[in-house]
């Protein structure tokens, strides 16, 4: 058999011209496709955000839909967020009491619980719970509307879908998140105090006085209001994923899943940035 040109050099099979299409993509090609895909995703997200922002600030405003979304995102998430906050309060109470006792700092318990819940756990737990419930809900709802042409019907009726569907949901998430966080914090502190009181009696008055002793504006309010940024992330990503869905039922499922996963991921990354920002701006 005549040897083909370009092969069999030191036992290696070198590719012939024209063989490229038959080979699976190399790691470099896959990586560059992935990076390109990421840039494209962020670019499309940026365009979507710009359209929503423009629609949100120009009349006519969709007040009725906004109020409906405030109820949907806010009041209907409250029980779940309160429960999550309560559970976190108990967990921190149990862990903190054990650790502080070991280091002889039991008297620091109220302040430890208060700062842990209000500054760290309350906001992030609220964000993740709302990301799951609201993110999936918005993503699935808008995806379902997209695949059944309801969003096209809205646009064909001369109504701006970015204003009616996206801006209202995103704004509702932004407005409601700090309030839900306060609710989660309150539940966490109450259950944390209760868990501690079961072991070592501590009056609520004493708990609040020592827990909030020396508290300043910068200690508590910025961590609570940073959750407005979480709301923006959850609403924006869920609406974006929902309104660009293709592919029927599978696409709807994918949109719901991606909404939760991406919103949760960006929320956690944003927390890193926001914590640093708060520490710098409010030392």
């Amino acid at each position, binding site marked *: 058999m005549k040897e083909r040109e370009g092969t069999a050099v030191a036992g290696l099979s070198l590719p012939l011209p024209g063989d490229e299409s038959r080979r699976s993509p190399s790691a470099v090609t896959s990586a560059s496709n992935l990076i390109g895909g990421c840039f494209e995703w962020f670019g499309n997200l940026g365009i979507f955000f710009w*359209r929503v922002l423009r*629609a949100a600030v*120009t009349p*006519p405003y969709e007040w009725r839909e906004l109020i409906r979304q405030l109820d949907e995102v806010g009041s209907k998430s409250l029980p779940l967020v309160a429960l999550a906050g309560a559970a976190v309060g108990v967990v921190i109470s149990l862990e903190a009491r054990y650790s502080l006792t070991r280091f002889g700092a039991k008297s620091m318990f109220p302040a430890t619980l208060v700062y842990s819940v209000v500054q760290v756990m309350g906001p992030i737990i609220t964000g993740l719970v709302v990301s799951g419930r609201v993110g999936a809900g918005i993503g699935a709802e808008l995806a379902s*509307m997209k695949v*059944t*042409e*309801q969003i*096209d*019907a*809205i*646009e*064909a*009726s*001369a*109504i*701006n879908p*970015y204003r009616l569907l996206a801006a209202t949901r995103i704004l509702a998430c932004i407005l409601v998140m700090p309030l839900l966080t306060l609710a989660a914090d309150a539940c966490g502190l109450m259950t944390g105090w209760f868990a501690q009181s079961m072991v070592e009696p501590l009056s609520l008055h004493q708990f609040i006085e020592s827990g909030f002793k020396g508290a300043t504006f910068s200690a508590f309010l910025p961590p609570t209001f940073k959750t407005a940024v979480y709301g923006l992330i959850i609403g924006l990503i869920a609406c974006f994923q929902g309104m660009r869905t293709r592919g029927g039922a599978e696409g709807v499922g994918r949109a719901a899943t991606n909404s939760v996963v991406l919103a949760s991921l960006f929320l956690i990354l944003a927390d890193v940035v926001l914590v640093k920002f708060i520490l710098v701006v409010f030392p």
Partner: protein
Amino acid sequence: MATANDIAMKQVDAPRDGSVPVVAVEDLRKAFGNHKVLNGIHLSVNRGETLAVLGRSGTGKSVLLRLIIGLETPDSGSVRIHGQDIVGLALDRMGEIRKKMGFLFQHAALYDSLTVAENVAFPLEHHKKEMSRSERGDRVKQLLAEVGMEGDLAKMPAEISGGMQKRVGLARALVLEPEILLLDEPTAGLDPISSGEIDDLILKLQRERKMASIVVTHDLHSARTIANRLALLDQGNVVIEGKYEDLQQSDIAFVQEFLKQS
């Protein structure tokens, strides 16, 4: 299948009284990836006219309607509404044009979280805020009575049949009293009796309202019933445009094959 020699673009001049066509599509082209859907379409519709756009499945008929209402953007060419080119218009500006248009989607595209009455009232609530609630309610009831759905106001879209959904979709498309009506396969998936009822309804509305209408359909019988002119698409081009008799007398092989199979 028609060969390149068989297919020739023939147009019958629409009646001209010096007025600008209500809808005019000029050299419209659209491709999705490598698939060319529309390859230079020229069409126009005047007030009071109904144009039926026929063709095989996948020839770009629905895409044509979506381009006219601006849900898709053409690769090149123009779409003129009352002489104004709408290609590239901003969303809010396009909204002003769309208030003059009614669109019936192939599967009605009713809002599944709203009742039948709420679906029809939806455009009124956004664009006719000066109307009182009772005025809006009366208008909705009147329109639903016109399409034979007056007894189903409180039902949800999932509770009514496909034909009934199309009637509601038609009522919703008419609620702002449009000058232009776009209908995407109004009788697709319906039994012959329901198809006939929808055709009669469209004819009645046309006689009363004198809109410029474009109906996309693969149902030749329906097209003959409701349209003044027919345009047959194939491979992204208008193969022939005219009355049914013009199609019958055409010597283009594809046209004869289409008529024979319909």
